[in-house]
């Protein structure tokens, strides 16, 4: 079983489904494209698609913290069935640890995880992520891309806060995932592809290449994200 913790809705869902079927990916977190200022439209498109494939997709909304209606819109999104929140500090022009995000995170339902892009200075760094995670210890934070080349910072941040989960999406050096597993345990890592932005074939192949036990592989490829979203 494979559960992709990081896919996007970009220009239709057909290509995602074709690729998922071909690669044997059973379920996926579905994130908005996250590239426009119109986060309400992007989020609504995601919930529409996810409701048509409710056994496959777990919809995440996106909220712009600079919008005066952000909290109000977040509450509507939660009522509409979103399972998590995506934030993109780089696109939103707000550093991860900026207190602007606190009002959003503070209004989340208890079980809703937050996935945040990392690895792009100056707004999206692992230790900024840690600052936010420490301020909201009851929220599960998924570190998108595990800081990319700042993977060591990502591991350090995860060591310092139990509510941080690392996501393998786009990691450039595959062996880093093995090292993460050794340092943090497989329970703290989820597989992601960034489909269709990145190649799901390549991202999945990175996991397949690694010297991981069946237990570790199952945790990373399916069980961790499933238990976060179904708790």
């Amino acid at each position, binding site marked *: 079983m494979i559960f992709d913790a990081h896919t996007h809705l970009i220009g239709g869902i057909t290509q995602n489904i074709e690729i998922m079927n071909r690669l044997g990916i059973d379920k996926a977190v579905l994130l908005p494209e996250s590239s426009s200022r119109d986060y309400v439209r992007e989020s609504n498109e995601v919930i529409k698609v996810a409701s048509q494939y409710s056994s496959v997709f777990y919809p995440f909304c996106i909220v712009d913290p600079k919008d005066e209606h952000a909290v109000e819109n977040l509450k509507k999104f939660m009522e509409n069935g979103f399972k998590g929140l995506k934030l993109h500090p*780089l696109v939103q022009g707000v550093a991860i640890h900026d207190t602007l995000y606190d009002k959003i995170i503070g209004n989340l339902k208890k079980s809703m995880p937050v996935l945040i892009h990392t*690895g*792009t*200075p100056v707004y999206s760094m692992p230790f900024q992520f840690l600052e936010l995670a420490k301020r909201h210890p009851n929220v599960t934070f998924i570190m998108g891309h595990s800081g*990319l*080349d700042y993977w060591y910072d990502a591991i350090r941040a995860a060591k310092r806060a139990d509510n941080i989960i690392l996501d393998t999406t*786009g*990691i*450039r*050096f*595959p*062996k880093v995932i*093995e*090292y993460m597993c050794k340092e943090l345990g497989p329970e703290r890592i989820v597989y992601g592809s960034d489909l269709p*932005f*990145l*190649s799901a*074939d*390549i*991202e999945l*192949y*990175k996991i397949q*290449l690694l010297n991981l036990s069946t237990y570790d592989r199952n945790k990373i490829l399916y069980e961790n994200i499933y238990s976060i979203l179904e708790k």
Partner: protein
Amino acid sequence: MMIDCHFEVGKYFFFNSNINDYLLTAEKYDIVAAISAPIFGRAYIDKWIEANRRMRMLKQENKIKLFGWFTVNPWVKNVTKSIEKNFDSTFFKGLKLFPSLQGMEPNMPIYHPIYEYAEKNKIPIYIPSGYPPMTPLQIADVSEMFKKLKIIIGRGGFSDFWMEVEPALKNGENIYLAISCQSNINALKKAISALGASRFLFETSYPFSDIDLEIKKLSSLNLNRNDLEKICYNNAKELFNI
């Protein structure tokens, strides 16, 4: 047939480059020549003389012809004299610099004597790219100053700096891109389609990246045979005179 323009030899942290493992896997993919560099670390700071010596001693016992990247520390006085003395062009195919380890941007004047020497002697320069101080556009600025110098931007922009790859290559015909470590296949496809395949080079960056993975990425690019041959072999053959 393929040429691997860049892999690294040595041990850094949990990255361990075993030359025999490398050769076994490389042979599987018909890699006929490969250019090795000392692994990330002190080889680019204070141990560069020893590192070059070690590279030069790599045994040529395999079907794969091994070459080397020569490293230098730009802070050393009269650095070009050392290059002149130790750069054995039958083995070394270029100079590799590592700005983040050497403490400055690649376009800074302290590097200029090296570039002048390399330009004059037709020696290509390889600089891994990624975060500052080695973004593709920072590296490309060197080509503005040294128009005949062949510069290879390594690791395909690495992270989100894939977005600088295409504009960097547009800075000059003397700039090449080695494509390992870049997960954004679409960005690479777009750059190759926009610029043609003549300035793209295959590299594995083993042991940081993985040889099998880099080969799989090549097939994901869906290139026509001509472009594939250019990227995998012909461009490197011509650039490095292999």
